[in-house]
């Protein structure tokens, strides 16, 4: 592994100051960063270890929102009683990701910032616009079965955003709180991850030197139920081929309100707003669910090996809705 300067920060100010240097990166759980530094895909000159910053609390705010410290681990967040009770979709999404050991290390901010799993990106030799802007995309005409998208792709990059947690957060609604050399600011979660467009090397709205301090979840939707359904190549420990995070509020046997986000199929955590509108006021039946699923995947563009993801994602929506509303029949 390449060598780098190493600083350990104990407060945010120290972390920001140390990160002011060129090519500095924050080190949290290290499960993305050290993996990719070993592959020489990420090439930091300086690492700023943020693990000792006091950003490891989960707090319920007076307006019902929940503020999650950047360093709260995926395990802690998934098991938090308030999260389990009011945001089951988030707890389930977290527990469906990675492995027990990795979730013990992985942090909330690190998860938001995780990189794509595209093997051409990771192999450090193939043309890849994300790794080396302008070199081309090997996946478009290459192997693109499992970790490549059908929504939000561009001719420059088609890799999916691999996170499960982020899909739940996209459905719930959230704000990313960041602190940088120019002070604090907030970014809407849905604006945080960027579509690849012409600049696939730009993945998020964070400016150089900025630190994520918290993710704030929107207050839970009253009287709602929610769940995460992840479809993958094996039953455990695998990235999603297609997944759905769904929150619904029923009124009698109709859908009063629904929030739907998709994983495994989009180049960013994918909120399916039009499908949500299509469900509003509809009877909670398979027919309505199928129509909404069709709307969600309307703009999908299949590639060589991943056309199956379009029906698979639809099924992830339909099945999740069926289970969630099961009582209604």
């Amino acid at each position, binding site marked *: *592994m*390449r*060598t*780098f*300067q*190493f600083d*350990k920060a104990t407060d945010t100010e120290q972390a920001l100051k140390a990160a002011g240097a060129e090519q500095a990166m924050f*080190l949290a*759980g*290290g*499960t993305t960063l*050290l*993996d990719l530094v*070993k*592959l020489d895909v990420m090439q930091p000159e300086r*690492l700023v*270890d943020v*693990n000792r910053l006091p950003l490891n609390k989960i707090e319920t705010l007076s307006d019902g929102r929940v503020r999650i410290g950047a360093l709260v681990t995926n395990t802690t967040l998934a*098991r938090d009683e308030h999260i389990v009770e009011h945001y089951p979709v988030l707890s389930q999404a977290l527990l469906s990701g*990675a*492995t*027990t*050991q*990795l979730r*013990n*290390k992985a942090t909330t901010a690190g998860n938001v910032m995780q990189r794509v799993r595209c093997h051409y990106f990771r192999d450090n030799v193939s043309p890849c616009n994300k790794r080396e802007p302008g070199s081309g995309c090997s996946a478009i005409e290459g192997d693109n079965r499992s970790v490549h998208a059908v929504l939000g792709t561009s001719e420059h990059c088609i890799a999916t955003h691999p996170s499960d947690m982020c899909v739940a957060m996209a459905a719930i609604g959230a704000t990313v709180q960041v602190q940088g050399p120019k002070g604090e600011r907030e970014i809407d979660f849905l604006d945080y991850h960027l579509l690849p467009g012409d600049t696939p090397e730009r993945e998020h709205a964070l400016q150089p030197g900025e630190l994520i301090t918290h993710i704030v979840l929107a207050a839970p939707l009253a009287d709602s139920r929610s769940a995460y359904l992840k479809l993958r190549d094996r039953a*455990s*420990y695998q990235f999603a081929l297609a997944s759905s995070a769904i929150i619904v509020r029923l009124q009698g046997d109709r859908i009063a309100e629904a929030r739907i986000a998709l994983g495994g199929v989009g180049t960013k955590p994918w909120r399916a707003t039009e499908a949500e509108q299509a469900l509003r006021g509809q009877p909670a039946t398979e027919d309505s669910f199928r129509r909404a699923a069709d709307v969600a995947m309307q703009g999908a563009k299949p590639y060589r090996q991943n056309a199956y993801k379009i029906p698979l994602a639809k099924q992830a929506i339909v099945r999740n809705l069926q289970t969630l509303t099961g009582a209604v029949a």
Partner: protein
Amino acid sequence: MSDSILPGRRTFLKSVGVSSLAVAAAPAWVQAAQAVRVDDSEQPLKPGEQRINLKVNGQTHTVNVPANAVLLDVLRDRLQLTGTKKGCDHGQCGACTLHVNGVAVNSCLSLAVSHDGDEITTIEGLEKDGTLHPVQEAFWEHDAYQCGYCTSGQIMSAVAIINDPAIGTDDASVREAMSGNICRCGAYKNILSAVQSAREKMKGAS
């Protein structure tokens, strides 16, 4: 060569397995497994190095390490604690699982410098006074390995899972919680029975 003069692969492995484990159970092995205490505090730091304290299996080592030294490599190469294995080196296989402050993590994705002052337990630290940990014993009794390469990681995960009240005790929950420990030999069935029988024994003991 005829089959009669060569022991079958199974018989051979079985005898080696049993005899090496018999040695493993003996106090001599246990002593050998305790690391010799490393103390670099008199050694001048080389450029880029930092001096850290690692409390491993109850023993504090002072080591000078470069910033990019990985915890797994420091344990194996500097402290000679080679029980923790390196499989994939990328967080995918679980062979390098150990406990940091009681929590199971992958040591291949951990920088040693990040763990200054932390308490680390490796497979070598599970026995107490020459007696194997119930999970170690159960792996032996249930033949929960073939080549043994994944075994340290499996056992470290199993101990953490049995001690974790948030993880279900049914077979499906154990399989799910241990899915980060890959066994190339496919000993999963026996691993599961070892974990479940160790759980029973540990319940009785406490």
